[in-house]
């Protein structure tokens, strides 16, 4: 219980949510490793420059297998959002409502990421609002990419 209270103060959602692990085939290992270093990376094709997220083994545009990880600034724009009231996971029983956002990354051809919008979960969120990535370290040893409204 004590450790639970400890983590609740530091993370947007309570402890007990499933923890992300890199896939065993190594496809997204660098994404999660970079997050731990507080760097946001997106897959980019070395041959034609196409960005893609989630990562894949091939470039969907030019079909080369030569893909690398490209560091982006963490600037984002809210493409869609929702306020969740029903706890679908047992760990969320007392965490509702919370806000989920879909964020576009303008400096990576608008690929999208899903996260939470830090702050008051009761606010109405503006579409296309500018946000910035926040790296949320969890005691279990992984880091989530969260978002907050960018300072003007």
């Amino acid at each position, binding site marked *: 219980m004590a450790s639970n209270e400890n983590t609740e103060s530091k993370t947007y959602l309570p402890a007990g949510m499933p*923890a992300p692990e*890199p896939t065993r085939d190594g496809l997204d290992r660098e994404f999660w490793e970079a997050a731990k270093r507080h760097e946001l990376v997106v897959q980019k094709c070395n041959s034609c420059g196409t960005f*893609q997220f989630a990562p894949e083994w091939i470039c969907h545009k030019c079909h080369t297998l030569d893909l690398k990880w490209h560091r982006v600034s963490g600037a984002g724009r809210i*493409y869609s959002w*929702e306020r*969740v*009231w029903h706890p679908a*996971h047992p760990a969320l029983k007392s965490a509702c409502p919370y806000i989920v956002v879909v964020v576009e990354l303008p400096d990576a051809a608008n690929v999208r990421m899903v996260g939470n919008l830090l702050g008051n979960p009761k606010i109405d969120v503006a579409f296309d609002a500018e946000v910035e990535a926040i790296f949320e370290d969890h005691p279990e040893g992984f880091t989530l990419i969260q978002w907050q409204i960018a300072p003007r």
Partner: protein
Amino acid sequence: MSEFTIKDKTAIAGLGETQYYKRGAAPVSEFRLALEAIQRAADDAGIPVTAIDGIASYSNDRNDSIRVATALGLPELRFTNMFWGGGGGGGSGAIGNAAAAIVAGFATCVVVYRALAQGQFGRFGATPSMRTISGPIAYTWPYGMSTPAQWIALRTRRFMYDHHITQDPLAAIAMACYHHAQSNPRAIMYGRPLTRQAYDDSRWIVEPFHLYDCCLENDGAAAVIVTSADRARDLKQKPVYIMASAQGSDFRQGAAAENGPDYATSNFKTLAPRLYAMAGIEPRDVDVAQVYENFTGAVMTSIVEHGFCRPDEVMDFCTFENLTAPNGKLPINTSGGNLAECYMHGLELIIEAARQVRGTSTCQVKDAEISMVVSGPMVAPVSDLILRR
């Protein structure tokens, strides 16, 4: 159009359903429910169950085809097929695959079934407790974005923002389904009418979805017998001809973490034109439609993508009056559908589409000739179907 087509070459000849139960209320096992539905469909067609020589299903049905064939003592199984993908996306596609198998000569009489006992197995609306996850779900689940309601709400929200749509069309769709269920004694929500006030007062699941925007969770089974058009004409029921079916996905709709390039879509923009082209009809020829309601928002976008109205016409088109039988412009989900009849992954919608053609619906559209089914919008892959008298 391709010279290869299934158009009008096959027909639905038999319909079978068990009683539909609330989640967890089925008194017998899921597999037995599947067998009962198949037997009823064969009885309805007027054929012995051993005449079945093909099996097709979808959504990774747990009731394995060879176990079914063995249990029923099928003498010669010639075709088995599973439509890939989850949710209800494969319902119409499984019928299309059955028709294709018959046209190709693989089989002569194919049963399509779906059985669900969410009380005996896992729930679709709840997230299993796992300590660690990886792959596509690792990009969403840790943020509390793990259920179909949650991803379909995000896409619906964007569509509503782009096209200045209020809560009204979602409420109208939910109320139309509940209205139709009030005439259907088989429906779980029979005797439970829904007012706009009750809709508005119901709790949010995830904005913009109230409780009543969300499908039910049920136990039961349904089955459909597909055979050649020639053979169907000699059987017990009036044939329900399969005019057309389409299946698949638009560009990169499987991209994880909400990265489908066209985001606020039900995933029918490339399918619907193929469907109409095979049938040789236009949207205005459709008399009645069963549009899979995982959530009302996906019904709204499916209506748009099947050409019944433009996005900027949704507020005027998706009204209770337009969506209800017998006089609406496009009566939908006339048995109550996934929201109010039963959540049988949309196979109950295909059965209702066939009933409309037979003239036996509890909310019959007068002289219904052409009957459409849209399966599993906002998942990938998806499928759709046009039936005719």
